[in-house]
């Protein structure tokens, strides 16, 4: 017996047809993705010299992208694992939309490391000759494990819905029906299956929560483990993690608003979800501010020579514009919007969330570049400089386009709102699996 869900028609509607608009969008995104791929081939043939990187700025936009995309990926795990453990049942309608961000941004995060390599064809040296003392290998391990477990977690919660697609979308093309049939793994909505699924997801949620903390901390240790001024701080781990969850949650707001609008899911993705996310975002923005102050006050107060060179460069030097606009984008403007305008207003919420994500990208940039520009040997080497070159810009755009493409295609073949998790009644459950919250989200 299928789960009963009053919104099942609305949720399955986007899956029923691929419009001309879709093909145009997919085509445009694919073109951007292929341009980036072309740039990468060029870079592979010529060498990393075609980028803006130099000495001492050995890491540039690619590593910024790596940190940013891995951060974006924390959206899904936060919503579906951490909030699952915390028993926040309001999150049910947006779990899959959030997890899909995780799934589709991770490949571009991991890919950015490969794009940044001077000899990408030697990637497997990591397996053959790996040195576990190196933060790079910690990253490789953590990120690949994260990608693998995200795929499993995502797929498991997708199975009952695939089964519903299999049973209901009988007019779909043959290959598509065949795909649902295979992926559904013979799911027949028996109460026992649902019990087991819930149990597995609960267990995995604990694991995923630990993993999400580990992954972004390890990402930050790429910098924190060196002795370079501005990087060598114990706070960098928690700071990166919080920033990741902040940008991830903001990304969920953007995606949710887009889905709601384009796929007419207003009833399912109701305004209450935005109001709940608003509260989370206010908390994270304030947390981010706290870490920002803690970090910079410690550095500024102690007044150590090399550290101050980097700090002054951010506060009042070359990077002052980027630094202060970043602070306004991540903290100043969004907080005002969330508090005074955000409630029951999706437009303002999306605007603030876009600002947060632009700001968070800038934040990653401002953590990485100024330290490299003013290395410890600065007094004898002179100030470095860095500006991304065309290939770096195009590859960055391609990464974002690629992520959007995967997302757009996915939503046309699979229900983006979990039908069984938002069901009014699940087989074998006396009560709704996840109680549908009041519309205000309070």
């Amino acid at each position: 017996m299928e789960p009963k869900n009053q919104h099942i028609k609305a949720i399955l509607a986007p899956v029923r047809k691929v419009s001309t608009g879709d093909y145009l969008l997919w085509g445009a995104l694919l073109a951007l993705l292929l341009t980036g791929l072309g740039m990468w081939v060029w870079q592979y043939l010529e060498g990393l010299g075609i980028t803006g990187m130099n000495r001492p700025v050995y890491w540039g936009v690619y590593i910024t992208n790596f940190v940013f995309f891995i951060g974006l990926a924390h959206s899904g795990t936060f919503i579906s694992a951490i909030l699952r453990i915390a028993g926040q049942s309001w999150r049910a309608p947006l779990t899959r939309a959030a997890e899909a961000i995780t799934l589709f941004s991770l490949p571009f995060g991991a890919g950015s490391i490969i794009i940044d390599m001077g000899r990408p064809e030697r990637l497997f040296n990591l397996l053959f000759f790996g040195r576990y003392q190196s933060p790079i290998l910690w990253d490789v391990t953590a990120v690949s494990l994260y990608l693998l477990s995200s795929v499993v977690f995502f797929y498991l919660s997708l199975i009952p819905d695939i089964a519903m697609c299999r049973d209901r979308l009988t007019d779909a093309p043959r290959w598509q029906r065949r795909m649902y049939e295979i992926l559904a793994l013979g799911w027949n909505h028996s109460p026992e299956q649902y019990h087991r699924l819930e149990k597995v997801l609960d267990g995995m949620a604990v694991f995923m929560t630990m993993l999400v903390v580990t992954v972004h901390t390890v990402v930050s240790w790429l910098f924190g483990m060196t002795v370079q001024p501005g990087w060598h701080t114990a706070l960098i781990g928690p700071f990166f993690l919080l920033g990741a969850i902040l940008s991830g949650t903001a990304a969920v707001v953007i995606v949710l608003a887009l889905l709601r609008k384009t796929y007419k899911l207003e009833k399912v993705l109701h305004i209450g979800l935005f109001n709940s996310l608003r509260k989370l975002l206010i908390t994270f923005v304030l947390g981010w501010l706290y870490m920002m102050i803690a970090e910079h006050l410690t550095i500024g107060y102690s007044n150590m020579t090399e550290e101050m060179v980097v700090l002054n460069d951010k506060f009042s030097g070359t990077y002052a514009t980027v630094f202060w606009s970043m602070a306004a984008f991540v903290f100043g403007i969004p907080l005002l919007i969330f508090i005074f305008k955000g409630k029951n207003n999706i437009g303002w919420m999306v605007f603030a969330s876009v600002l947060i994500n632009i700001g968070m990208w800038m934040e990653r940039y401002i953590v990485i570049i100024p330290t490299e520009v003013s290395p410890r040997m600065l007094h004898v080497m002179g100030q470095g400089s860095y500006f991304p070159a065309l290939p770096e810009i195009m590859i960055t755009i391609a990464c974002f386009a690629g992520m959007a493409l995967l997302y757009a295609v996915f939503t046309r073949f699979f229900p983006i709102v979990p039908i069984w998790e938002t069901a009014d009644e699940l087989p074998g459950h006396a009560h709704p699996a996840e109680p549908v919250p009041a519309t205000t989200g309070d």
Partner: protein
Amino acid sequence: MPRWGMVIDLDKCFACQSCTAACRMENNTPIAGKNQADMGRAILWNEVLPFVEGEYPNVQTTILPRPCMHCEEPACIKVCPVKATYKNEEGIVLVDYDRCIGCRMCTVACPYAVRYFNWYEPEWPDDLKEHLNPEPEVQPRPKGVVEKCTFCVQRLRKARETAEAEGRTFQTTDYIPACVQTCTGRARYFGDLDDPNSLVAKLAHSPRAYRVFEELGTHPKVYYLKQG
């Protein structure tokens, strides 16, 4: 096993750059060209770095010739994810160019900025190309890998081979890197730091001796004698 180290007397150095030139010829570092050099992409295993303090007319200039420090506790080795950079049994820090994946974590981690990345395939003007050093250790490095000063390991190998061919035991004084040999002001000393009678060991214990960024715990094997 000797523990190779270097001492540079800053009172004697007058920044003639002959160490940089000799290093370039000995180790086949590619010619970057003016544009690339302006972008900070020149590869110079040995650099002579000027440190200018104060403003005209009260200017004090310190010159710091900087090879690789060949640290006892190198920041570069532990961050290399593929063990491409390593310390050999005589304490010399080397790079395996066939294994390096070009992630540049070592270049970022080294506080002395001694590591260089090959942004492009290396190039030389034709006239120079005919005179590249034929030793196997210094064959041109491919693009996309990191390289650095090796204390001229090829010279160490050759010195051992010569000693063997001449039927005598190898002396630590048989080998010096190109920069030490060429130094016009005789400002550089090289030898076994573990041999208490060697000149480098004595100079390393001079009251004028110091190491760069001693506080980082990297324990460099290059000592400087204070200008003074």
